[in-house]
């Protein structure tokens, strides 16, 4: 945490007050505690997943023709013959030690699968978030400035319907459309797989379009609100050049809300990447989880879902903390 005199960047929300250090400490602590509790719940839920499957997961996985000895051996290897509570204890102990079990199908340790695949997924999601923000924030500001006080109704109608439609199309349709047009039709980009930089273009676009439309909408609303403030009126009275007015006076105050949503979109991007990876045969976690679910490879499904969940919780924690720094009222409101 910075010193207590650090001003809020989106300070419109808290004029003249700075969060006292103690409140801020309590704020951070409360969010950390909440994060740990959520992680624990997630851990239990992923443990329970296998036990909630009706019938015997091992038999379901190996098929009805599997020999009884194999099933018994597999059950013993998974510890399924132990009492439930001791299974949970050893599961938690293993996960904390980085042991996620072994794949039913390939026999690989799930931990290694995750370690090999996770970076590919994260890179995709992060790059898509960055691209979405870089495109959407200026676009939203431009639309906000153009449609201030209800002028240019045509632009407003076009902008809202276009972004509304763009938000409504799921990422797997963008993926298919992009592959069909730019990879198969025009041959500009590889249709699948991870290779050089050009192989990143289509998956990132497919992931970024819908979130970008969403962020552009928020950015426009925030810009409209800012344009109505007295200080922007005064800045206009000073006859500042447009670029300076919008970049220095308007933009910083719109970022709090925009970045909050951007952070939350990152979590939905991680889930959306499952579908995009599937279309582009991208060697990430998403491709693997789909395979594991269809082939009933439960240890892999369990481990990957756990990792996805933990990432979502971590991103949410970061967004909450960042927001507490940028906008101290959110911290005050909670307490």
């Amino acid at each position, binding site marked *: 945490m910075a010193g207590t*005199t650090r001003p809020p*960047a*989106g*300070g*419109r929300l808290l*004029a*003249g*007050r700075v969060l006292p250090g103690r409140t801020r400490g309590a704020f951070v602590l409360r969010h950390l505690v*909440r994060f740990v509790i*959520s992680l624990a719940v997630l851990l239990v839920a992923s443990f329970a*997943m296998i036990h*909630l*499957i009706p019938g015997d997961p091992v038999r379901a996985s190996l098929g009805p023709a599997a020999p009884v000895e194999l099933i018994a051996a597999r059950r013993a290897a998974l510890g399924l013959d132990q009492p439930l509570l001791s299974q949970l204890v050893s599961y938690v102990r293993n996960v904390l030690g980085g042991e996620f079990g072994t794949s039913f199908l390939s026999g690989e340790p799930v931990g290694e699968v995750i370690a090999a695949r996770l970076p590919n997924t994260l890179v995709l999601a992060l790059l898509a978030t960055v691209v979405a923000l870089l495109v959407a924030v200026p676009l939203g500001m431009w639309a906000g400035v153009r449609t*201030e*006080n*209800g*002028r240019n109704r045509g632009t407003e*109608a076009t902008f809202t*319907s276009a972004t*509304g*439609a763009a*938000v*409504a*199309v*799921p990422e*797997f*349709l963008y993926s*298919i459309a992009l592959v*069909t047009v730019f990879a*198969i039709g025009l041959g500009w980009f590889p*249709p699948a797989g991870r290779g050089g930089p050009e192989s990143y273009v289509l998956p990132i676009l497919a992931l970024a379009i819908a979130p970008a439309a969403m962020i552009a909408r928020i950015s426009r609303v925030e810009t409209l609100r800012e344009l109505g403030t*007295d*200080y922007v009126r*005064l*800045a*206009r*009275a*000073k*006859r*500042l*050049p447009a670029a*300076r007015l919008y970049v*220095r*006076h308007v933009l*910083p*105050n719109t970022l709090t809300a925009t970045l909050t949503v951007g952070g939350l979109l990152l*979590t939905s991007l991680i*889930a*959306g990447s499952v*579908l995009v990876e*599937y279309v582009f045969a991208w060697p990430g976690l998403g491709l693997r989880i*789909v395979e594991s*679910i*269809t082939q009933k490879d*439960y240890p892999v*499904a369990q481990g990957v*879902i756990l990792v996805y*969940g933990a990432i*979502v919780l971590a991103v*949410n924690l970061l967004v909450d903390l960042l927001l507490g720094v940028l906008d101290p009222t959110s911290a005050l409101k909670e307490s």
Partner: protein
Amino acid sequence: MRHLLRTPAGLAGTTLVGLMVILAIAGPPIWGAEAERIDPAVILQGASAAHPLGTDNLGRDILARVLVAGRLSLVLALLATLIGAIGGIVLGALPSVLPRRAARLVTGTVNALVAFPGLLLAMFTAVVAGLGARGAVLGIGVAIAPGFARLTQTLAASVSGADYVSAARMLGVPRRRIMARHVLPNIAEPLILNLTQALGGALLGLAGMSFLGLGVQPPSFDWGRLLFDGFGRIYSTPAVALGPAVAVALAGIGFNLLGDVLARAASRTAVPAGKAVPRAVSAPGALGEPDPEAVLEVRDLTVTFPGGVTPVRGLSLTVAPGEIVGLVGESGSGKSLTASAIGGLVPYPGEVSAARLRLCGTDLGELPEQERRKLLGTSLAMVFQDPMASLNPALRVGGQLAEVATVHQGASRAEARARAVDRLRHVRIPEPDRRARQHPHELSGGMRQRAVIAMGLMGTPRLIIADEPTTALDVTVQRQILRLLREVTGESGAATLFISHDIAVVGELCHRVVVMYAGRVVEELPVEKLASGAAHPYTRALVASLPDMDTDRSLPLASISGHQPSPAELGPGCAFAARCELATGRCAERPPLIPYGKAHQVACWEAS
């Protein structure tokens, strides 16, 4: 429901959803047989005249299958939405009924789940419930529920503050009953309207699950499953993926657009849009020669808004150097808009017209854009009412001052900064160097208003427009700001246009007073005449309503009965007539502003 069709988005959404519903009802009976007809002769074909979207691995027509699959896609989405909505509403209503600790647990769980991506929840459920339509529907339902729970909670919280709920609570009605009888019925409408959006989300989610092979399994098929089948063939025959992809996209867009409109309708009432009426251009009267000495000369200034609303009508005003002119009037008299019009800051869709608008001896209308910006940026200083809101919270005070010099006067950053500190010192801000480096929220209200005035002094101000600059401040701070304004005007030779509703402050500070009523100047007089020599009944009433030390405190405070007509309801006559004790039949005609003694003008039939 008619407003749905008014916007293009609403119209498109309604049309698309309507088509989807028709397709779901009529699709299977019409194309069902075609969709199932196996034809070994045409296996895995691309687009052809007989099969516009090609055939699948059993030779079945894909177009027919897409048209038939609409029903299953929609029905499954509907099921998932119902599961999610019912589960969510129960979950959202629970905290109002449960004991406090349990309620907090439920709220916390809902908050955690809302942040969880739906697809993740759906996949978790699908693993447990098994592959297939049942698992996917359950999974998507589970994914939808947290959103509905959150919505129910928010809506219930907004209703539970209502008087009728408080009354029921005071009467000892049990909480469960309050929820069922008072809260839920009142939030039912927004919940139902939000179903449309949820339905769109469910449809896309299910399509995604089926596309991954985790949803509908053969021999059943929905759009997602058709896409799954077609996806493997897009390298050879892209057309086979086109049909289901377009169907899913259109359905998603349709439900989302319609849902957007419905959700917005649920959250607010429609704002009627004003209709633009062509404005009658007033014929310019005899203007006379421009006054070369005047800092500001305005003739026949009119501000019009669409719908024929004219808050400022034919206002004329001349301000000489070194002069402090008070512009007085009630809220809504048009005084602030006058200030905005002079500064060129009237917000769209307002329209400003004037027979003459000269600042510092130059006609603003004739000046090229670049020079006008420079003139207005350096010669005109504006001070607004709320100093808390006039400085940008994200930027340092010094930087906000300095940019005037860098932008308009070509100063270097260091020069501009030094000047900013100097100006802050000039308006007697202690420790100007440190203050310049601070953000506005670290300054007190009075200090901020000083900083705004200092900002105006960055250029070479000829005219300072102060729009109620002391209204938001403490009385003692008010005095200081007024003194500062007087000093600044005196030493720089600039003129000040001081806008206020407070006739006492105006009487103290200004040299000359201009009284506005309903968009027009009704009287203009030297300040010495204000107390006893005012000629217009409105000015006199304003002065009389001021309590002073001699006011008999046993009597009620004098006030003006009635209210100022709004710009939309103004008739042709004197706007004050309805509230005037002296009004006669002649007041049905509007009195012109005519000279009345030295440096005194009035618009009243009774005064002359």
